[in-house]
């Protein structure tokens, strides 16, 4: 009876603690390899192109429509309260730059590139290609993980900055075409109120998100077991865990940045 109740709970606790320990060891090992051996720049470049260029259209389109929705919502709300659309540019720009661009970009990239990475590494694991790396004188952390982590760290901020522009541009399209706000007004709403620190608030978040997504997806990939079903499970888990981690980390990073006076 006791075994039936506490057995599964105990096993789950052991599994979670073991998983967290192994995840931490992967991060430690990555730092060690980063400082100890040459970086695989060719692999890093391939991953940058894959994560960056191929994700660009999706992230741009997502944030373009997000900017449009923001303009529409804020315009409609201020019309309801003040009889005219006020500060639409400010609302769109602040929301996009500080919050929505980094978060939306991270979510889209983890769904697209993160899933692909977990599936690729998972397949490599179950077909013994990861073991083959050991037998050929290198290490999966050095050859597979570090290039992907570096690629995420370099590319996600870039994608997010592009998303800032596409979001603000999407907002302008609605503000101009639907709400009848002149371009100069929309633009002044942004530049008059926004400071570099607002930009950095959003920009710095990207590095945390990149770190979290890259390590979760790589970890899930290289610890895959159980054939095709295992690869499917690892991919799903990688996407779900990295998306949840992005949203959770977003709060804590925002809290730290606000505390540091970078609101």
């Amino acid at each position, binding site marked *: 009876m006791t075994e039936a109740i506490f057995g599964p709970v105990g096993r789950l606790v052991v599994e979670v603690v073991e998983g967290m320990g192994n995840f931490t060891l992967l991060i430690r090992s990555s730092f060690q390899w980063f400082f100890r051996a040459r970086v695989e720049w060719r692999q890093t470049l391939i991953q940058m192109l894959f994560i960056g260029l191929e994700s660009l259209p999706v992230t741009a389109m997502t944030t373009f429509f997000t900017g449009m929705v923001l303009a529409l919502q804020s315009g409609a709300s201020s019309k309801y309260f003040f009889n005219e659309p006020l500060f639409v540019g400010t609302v769109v720009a602040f929301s996009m730059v500080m919050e929505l661009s980094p978060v939306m970009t991270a979510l889209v990239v983890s769904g697209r590139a993160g899933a692909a990475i977990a599936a690729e590494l998972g397949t490599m694991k179950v077909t013994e290609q990861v073991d083959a790396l*050991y*037998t050929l004188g290198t290490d999966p952390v050095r050859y597979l993980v570090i290039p992907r982590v570096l690629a995420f760290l370099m590319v996600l901020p870039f994608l997010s900055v592009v998303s800032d522009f596409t979001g603000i541009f999407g907002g302008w399209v609605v503000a101009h075409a639907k709400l009848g706000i002149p371009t100069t007004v929309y633009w002044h709403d942004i530049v008059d109120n926004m400071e570099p620190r607002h930009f950095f608030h959003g920009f710095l978040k990207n590095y945390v998100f990149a770190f979290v997504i890259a390590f979760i997806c790589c970890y899930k990939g290289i610890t895959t077991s159980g054939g095709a079903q295992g690869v499917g499970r690892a991919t799903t888990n990688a996407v779900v865990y990295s998306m949840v981690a992005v949203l959770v980390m977003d709060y804590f990073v925002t809290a730290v940045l606000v505390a540091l006076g970078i609101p």
Partner: protein
Amino acid sequence: MIIAESVKKSFGHRSVLRGASLKVETGETLVIIGGSGTGKSTFIKTVIGLVKPDSGSIKVDGQDLTRIKTEEGLAAYRRNFGYLFQEGALFDSLRVWENVVFGLRYLTDTPFSQYRKIATDKLALVGLKDVEDLMPSELSGGMKKRVALARAIAAEPSYILYDEPTTGLDPIMSDVINDLIMDLQKQLKVTSIVVSHDMKSAYKIASRIAMIYEGKFIEVGTPEQIKTTSNPYVRQFVEGLSQGPIKMKIKEFEA
């Protein structure tokens, strides 16, 4: 020379190696035979350091694997070996020639300018020509095994470990791979450990055959000695009989 003494390895509650001891002489081809799940592959993965033994020792030319503590030390130890994986384990994203020379960058100081030529030479050694620029997905099962073999010998190791090299191949291709293993043995003068349950292949290529059962080596001998053994377990296995001391049930749920 490889000397394994009382090697034990468990995965969770499942004990796979239960004190495996084996001596592999320099220059010989030793074939490890045994049923599925008896620890054949685990044993050679332990020898190359892909699986860490729970206890026991493995000495390769006097160097004890179990005493190596650093990743660099382990990488240097693995330089002694070429490893042919059961399914080849070729890197899907790289072309055939890039697969073949993959290890050179990490294992040797060979300049990059020579990689292509080395790949062509090693592929010729395993009987392949004009496949350098193909992707692994474009190869047949037999060709994949050959490319994987070319990759295993590219850095000129002293030991080659073969994990079921003929599994999944038709009988003719299996025999071609057997000939290839014997050819490489003659040309490269390497020491080989071959894991197999294909007795025809074992009799053909082996200098000696070792039978593993329930995680321990129960008999080691020349192919002739194995053929005429009085050990009932080995006899049952080499003759492929369902009746005997090794119990394999027709229905797994039978008592």
